[in-house]
């Protein structure tokens, strides 16, 4: 057994050895990739190779549609900045997003709302799927833009992006998906899905932090968030991050190759963890969609036990997970995602996200299955709340 059982891969992933190797060599590729001299051209060639790998991972036929950014938050902010620009000049201003987006989308949308844009946060059902009736109703001719995450980071629910993008297109609205958690875990195709913009991040793919990308369909408008030089066709200024981009290229190349075997293996481990925990611990609620769910993500609620106490008890056993409890986030509000699914505050405060990954083993899953039941039992014994079994369809 390793010193730590890491089950927080949705937060971030370790650098895989092949990527580390390529990046270590890339420390010597120091030339400015915008320079015309030989060293500059060599660096540029590496960057374009990486761009092609990233494009291939998300099914983009033209690598020129991929723009490197500092990560998922910047990619999402760039799209919202673009819509701010369009909306302020045009007649269409309405923005649709969902109640379960990542904070960088939530806060970008909130900023546009402050600036006078009509913003609608579409509700989700108890499994975390966007309510399609609300979507149909809200997708009016004045809708400028729709942003729906491909898969949720907390509960793993996979949204019907293809269908929703098609509906937006028919209405003449732009469609963006934050695919940060989806890329590398499920098949992602910008052409099949028919999206205008797609956000991705490298550090969820066993690559380095501080690098991400934005796919922009050819012909779709884009306004820079970072203005300056001519890098990235003037869409994103700043000297090329050679090291990050080269690492991203390798991580993307490997993720594309690994996807089928990775998802099958990790899905089996997730099912094993789910089976072991739900059979050994009474009154467990499985959050998220029963089938349309990321193969690595298992979100459980343990009524009667508080999430931060569970997390820290596991931490003392060397097991690393995350929670939707308010206490862990430093606010009084528990996970907005779980609240949006209607589970109620107790189940949101008592939730734990296990996100498995490439290096998770069956031995680790069984270790967690052995360590968690006494922790829950102990916290429930000292709890003022009784662990009432919630009605649970999945």
């Amino acid at each position, binding site marked *: 057994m390793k010193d730590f059982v890491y089950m927080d891969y949705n937060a971030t992933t370790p650098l895989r050895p092949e990527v580390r190797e390529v990046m270590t060599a890339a420390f010597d590729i120091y030339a400015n990739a915008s320079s015309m001299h030989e060293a500059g051209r060599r660096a540029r060639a590496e960057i374009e190779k990486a761009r092609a790998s990233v494009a291939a991972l998300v099914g983009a036929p033209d690598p020129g549609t991929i723009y490197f950014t500092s990560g998922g938050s910047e990619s999402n902010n760039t799209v919202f900045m673009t819509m701010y620009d369009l909306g302020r000049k045009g007649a269409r201003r309405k923005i649709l997003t969902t109640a379960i987006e990542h904070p960088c989308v939530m806060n970008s949308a909130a900023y546009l709302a402050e600036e006078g844009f009509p913003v609608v946060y579409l509700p989700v059902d108890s499994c975390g799927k966007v309510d399609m009736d609300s979507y149909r109703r809200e997708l009016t001719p004045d809708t400028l833009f729709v942003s729906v995450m491909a898969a949720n980071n907390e509960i793993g629910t996979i949204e019907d992006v293809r269908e929703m993008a098609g509906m937006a297109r028919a209405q003449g609205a732009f469609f963006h998906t934050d695919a940060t958690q989806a890329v590398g875990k499920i098949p992602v195709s910008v052409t099949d899905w028919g999206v205008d913009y797609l956000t991705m991040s490298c550090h969820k793919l066993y690559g380095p932090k501080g690098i991400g990308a934005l796919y922009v369909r050819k012909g779709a408008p884009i306004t820079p968030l970072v203005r300056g030089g001519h890098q990235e066709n003037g869409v994103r200024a700043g000297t090329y991050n050679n090291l990050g981009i080269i690492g991203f290229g390798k991580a993307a190349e490997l993720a594309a190759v690994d996807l089928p075997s990775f998802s099958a293996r990790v899905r089996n481990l997730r099912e094993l963890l789910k089976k072991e925990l739900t059979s050994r611990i009474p009154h467990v609620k499985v959050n998220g969609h029963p089938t349309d769910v990321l193969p690595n993500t298992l979100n459980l609620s343990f009524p*009667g*036990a*508080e999430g*931060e*106490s569970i997390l*820290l*008890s596991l*931490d*003392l056993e060397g097991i690393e997970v995350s929670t939707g*409890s*308010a*206490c*862990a986030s*430093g606010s*009084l509000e*528990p996970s907005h995602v779980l609240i949006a699914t209607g589970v109620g*505050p*107790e189940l949101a*405060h008592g939730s734990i996200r296990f996100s498995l990954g490439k290096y998770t083993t069956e031995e680790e899953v069984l270790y967690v299955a052995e360590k968690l039941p006494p922790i829950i039992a102990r916290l429930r*014994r*000292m*709890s*003022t*709340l009784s662990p009432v079994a919630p009605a649970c369809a999945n």
Partner: protein
Amino acid sequence: MDAFQWLYSDTVKDHFTNPRNVWNPDEVFVADAEGVVGNIKCGDQMMFLLKIKDDIITDLRWKTYGCASAIASTSMLSETVKGMEIRKAYGIKPADIAAKLGGLPGNKIHCSVLGDKALRAAIDQYLEKRGRAGEFKGEDSVVICTCLNITDKDIETAVKAGARTWQDLQEATKIGTVCGGCKVKAEELLHEFVHIYF
């Protein structure tokens, strides 16, 4: 104390993993007074049970739905007040308990106030049952937040200790985190005390 270290201070870890005086539901514990504060909406709830003889806390138990800081600080509080005269126990402040634990990170202080509030609620109940209601509150103190039993004196103390905004006040006392009905009155007092003292 940094974010990495806090859980691993031996004292916090000890009280979190092996809390003292927790009420095991299998144990028969006949209490003279009970206090419950907090609300599951905010993610934590606390209960104190006290045995009191001649105004001395002879034994006590507690339970919580709460985070590690709430568990560790309430465990420490329970050890501190066992055998203590109720008037003295009533005056114990969360900061005293945090200090005994070797300090808590700033964002964890608010988690540690519930134990103190529950203890005071239990003592209040004891006094009330004996026709001594409000004896320790001081003649001029008024309960502002009825959910958490927070008085104007508590707000004054928090302001003196540095609270300037509603958020500061909530972090220091947890006021208004249950029903929120006291917010207008409490904010008036907050501004008044800030005006008086600073």
